[in-house]
């Protein structure tokens, strides 16, 4: 039976942050911290770079804006010309409100889709969800750090020692 990773339970957000700093400095790459609520400063402690979701949002927004403008131009000034209120066939002014709404709509779609893609969601199962200690703790009052066995630096003895030195009272191997 394969092991998914090594799980260490911490009692306070401060302990979890310090442990994350240690694991980051030790050079691990495939690991994560699971907490019942967002912990400020955790991204810096884990050494996480800025999220790339913003790019999906931006691309969504640009697509929305240009498609809105193009749609209105194509419908009103090219495909079926109609004069309304003596206004020009096409003007960025009257096209703006609709394009702006489409910018917001597609930008929020972009954020949502980007988040799902980058998180590799949806997925039906995760090995950690089989672990009772994990499920009860990470959603309630425990701060859980998990280092995957797939990490190139993973070594059962060394990693266990590192997590113990970070102050975890409970370390266990999670099955895949």
């Amino acid at each position, binding site marked *: 039976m394969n092991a998914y990773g090594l799980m260490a339970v911490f009692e306070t957000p401060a302990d979890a942050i310090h442990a994350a700093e240690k694991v980051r400095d030790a050079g691990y790459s495939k690991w994560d911290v699971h907490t019942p609520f967002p912990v400020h400063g955790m991204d810096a402690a884990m050494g996480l770079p*800025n999220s790339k979701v*913003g790019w999906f949002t*931006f691309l969504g927004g640009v697509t929305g804006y240009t498609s809105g403008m193009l749609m209105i131009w194509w419908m009103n000034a090219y495909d079926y010309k109609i004069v309304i*209120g*003596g*206004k020009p066939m096409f003007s960025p*002014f*009257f096209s*703006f*409100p609709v394009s702006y709404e489409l910018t917001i709509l597609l930008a929020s779609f972009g954020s949502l889709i980007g988040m799902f893609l980058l998180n590799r969601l949806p997925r039906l199962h995760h090995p950690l969800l089989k672990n009772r200690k994990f499920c009860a703790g990470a959603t309630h009052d425990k701060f859980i750090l998990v280092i995957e066995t797939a990490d190139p630096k993973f070594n059962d003895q060394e990693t266990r020692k590192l997590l113990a030195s970070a102050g975890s009272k409970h370390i266990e191997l999670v099955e895949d």
Partner: protein
Amino acid sequence: MTTPAFNFISGLCRRSCVAAVVVAFAVAALLGSRLTAAEHAEHAKAETKAVQKAEAGHEGHDHGAGGCQGCCGDEPSELKKFGYAYLTAYMFCLSFCLGALFLVILNHLFDAQWMLPIRRFLEHLACQLFPTMAILWIPIGILAPKLYPWMTSDPATDHALAAKYPLFTINFFYGISLLIFLVWWFISSGLRRASLAQDKDGAAQHTRTMRKYAAGGIFCFAFSLTGAAIFWMKALSHQFFSTMYGVVYFAGSVWVTVITTYWLLLYFRNRGELKDVTREVTFHDCGKLFFAFTVFYAYIHFSQYFLIWNAAVPEETFWYVAREKGSWWWVGQLTIFGHFWMPFLMLLPIHRKLNLGFMSTMAGWAWVCHYLDLQFNIGPVLYPDGPHLGIYDVLCLSGLLAVIIFRFTSAFNAHPPYPQRDPRVAESMGVYVEPAASKAAH
């Protein structure tokens, strides 16, 4: 010279890209005024011919003809030139005081923790509204008959003036102006008095007092600011209608104040006064607020333009038509691209909001944009062909700024640099203090 100061000035004139835009703008302005001068000459010829053809006794009935008599007939008098330059500089300085007052009110309305480091100097800036700005308003009060065409216009023949009675009458004008300053005095000094009293005794009562001032003050602030924008700026073209005019001035004012706040925070942190309370997140939050107001200003000004454009009512469109003539057109373009698109696109990534050098440069750039935005509002009444930036503008702006900066720094140096015993001071320093109630529960 410290880095933020250098960057700020570079934002005003040094950075190569910014300089290129300014030079391009100046060239365009020159070309524009030449072109319109030629256009005007041709237009005048055509008009005289038309008038000769037209029958005698046919009355001039549109605003265009009425407005044109006042402005492109002969060179405006020196006093008038000075008055317009002074008014523009005054409205520019007023922006900071009103923006600061708004941010202080905002702080209490939302019970915001992150604004604590910036609150004290904003309180001082807001308190410049009275008596400093009130005294500086006196020249406008004296020159008003020269500045505002409605003051010398007869309501019996001017329909717009009669229709807006009693809005544009001498008594109303001075009465409202006085009332506006009293309202500002009441809110700004009340907020600062409670804040300084809290420094001494640390009582939570003062926080409640400030909340009351803020809750009532936001309404008075909205009405008084709208009144100021209408009476002192929009009244230059009293025929004009726009219910959004006050909000446009408000949005631009807060926009330029927020980025100036960012710069002042950086300046006072580097000098040491605000070193203990300033964290990276304070700059980030300030940057976010600036970004929000970049969008808000564009949204509001676009809405004003869009509604006027769409309705196409002559009483409203003449205002923008005058501002699309000559090199004013380029100032409008600067508002679209320099006031909105450039900061908007530049500030989208998170790291730029934390780039202190970049943001200081942006502060200088915002000053240029906001000043030209006010020129755009005020200038075309006197100079229909484009902005004329002369010695009066430089003198008025530097003079008023010098007074404000002097009064502001002496107030800042006389008191503690941030609220010393505010209930949220530990939180804003990033220290967690467990509440007494939760300690007892353990």
